[in-house]
């Protein structure tokens, strides 16, 4: 009799996961493209800010990237828990695949923030609390990627980087609340607040559309990267089998020649 398994436990079978991804991914890509089309259209047609002019549009690229950089880390932290607590095989793949995507989002946030900072603040880079903590996040992503590359065995790499990811979670609340705790140049939170968004709806709608587009883009890329990682491991396993077979086949031959 087939044992009853939950949704997550059922996905532990990589083949089942691959079938699911194969079915879901085309829809995800389509939704992402539509959302980006809507989001970019709104971003370019919405009014310019009375103070910032057209540079306000940088926000539609910058803010969702910054949100996603943090969300990606939380996804990685959840996967890291899955690795250490439940030893879920897909959790290993999940946080390994997420790290480069998170690094890319963080880099995008830093880059666009810098491009906006030059005309608005008069400097490409300011060492304020938000910028510094996001920069630390970027360094942590790179450190996790480096650790993953330094360990040959995928399972051990996953467990070690899971520990590092969980230790690094401390940085996420620091980033989130840095603008409230320290009185710095970066503006305080204006969208996700207990008393509702303080941002004007003219800017809120394009921002929301772009945030949704970014979120779907993240999950699409994440699923695709996870699929690639599973394929990569299968190829590596097949190569190992082929190599050991070739070795066995090659071994008796020299003796016969002697």
């Amino acid at each position: 009799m087939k044992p009853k398994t939950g949704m997550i436990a059922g996905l532990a079978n990589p083949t089942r996961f691959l079938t699911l991804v194969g079915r879901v991914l085309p829809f995800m890509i389509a939704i992402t493209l539509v959302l980006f089309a809507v989001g970019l259209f709104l971003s370019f047609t919405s009014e310019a800010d009375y103070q910032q002019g057209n540079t306000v549009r940088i926000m539609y690229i910058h803010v969702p990237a910054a949100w996603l950089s943090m969300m990606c880390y939380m996804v990685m932290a959840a996967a890291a828990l899955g690795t250490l607590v439940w030893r879920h095989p897909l959790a290993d793949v999940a946080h390994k695949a997420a790290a480069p995507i998170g690094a890319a989002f963080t880099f995008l946030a830093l880059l666009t923030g810098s491009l906006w900072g030059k005309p608005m603040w008069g400097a490409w880079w300011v060492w304020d609390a938000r910028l510094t903590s996001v920069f630390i996040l970027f360094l942590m992503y790179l450190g996790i990627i480096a650790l993953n590359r330094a360990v040959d065995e995928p399972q051990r790499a996953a467990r070690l980087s899971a520990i590092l990811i969980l230790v690094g979670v401390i940085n996420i609340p620091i980033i989130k609340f840095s603008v409230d705790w320290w009185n710095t140049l970066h503006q305080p939170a204006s969208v996700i607040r207990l008393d509702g968004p303080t941002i004007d709806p003219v800017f809120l709608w394009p921002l929301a559309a772009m945030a949704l587009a970014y979120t779907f883009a993240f999950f699409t890329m994440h699923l695709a990267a996870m699929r690639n990682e599973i394929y990569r491991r299968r190829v590596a396993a097949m190569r190992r089998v082929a190599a050991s077979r070739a070795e066995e086949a090659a071994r008796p031959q020299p003796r016969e020649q002697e």
Partner: protein
Amino acid sequence: MGALYRRDVILALRAGGGALVGLLFFLCVVATVPFGVGPDLALLARIGPAIVWIAVLLSTLIGLDRLFRAERDDGSLDLLKMQDEPLVLIVLVKCLAHWTAYVLPLIILSPVMGLLMNVGPAGLGAAFITLLVGSPAITFIGAAGAAIAVSLPRGGLLVPILILPLAIPVLIFGVGASYAATSEIEAFLPPFLILVALTLFFAVVGPLAASLALRQGDD
């Protein structure tokens, strides 16, 4: 536990001059800065405490590789894992021993370095106190990195890369408190108390993560 602490300190001080290398590195970093920024005494006096902090941070990170490496190489790490005492406690004791042997000499030397930088008495005292309170945090969190990297064949340079981002808050508040002590505008106590909190926090998180990594590291 006491025996382990004594053994680790004696090993660090006598065998191979490991602790001495950290001290020399510290001297080198502090001595390099005046060449880099120029021998302007007013500027050096202002950035002096920060330089000493950065030098201590770097020297600590350099020395962290030795925390578990020798034990792993001669196999006594496996013996430590098999003790009745929880591994977390053993790691904590090893961290304290490492801090005593490698970091405490740097801190004792730091006022002298500050004098070379033309730092005033208030700045010297502040740098000394903040280092004394803050540097254990670097060792504790560094233990996690050292434990992660110990099983890697080429993990030596990885430890500073993994740990530096996590140690930056310690640096920020340590230097912040040192600056506050020399200026009239800012208060010394708030950053100093956050520094204390960071040390206590990492005293829990660091050894916990390190012992977890040591157990997961090899099968």
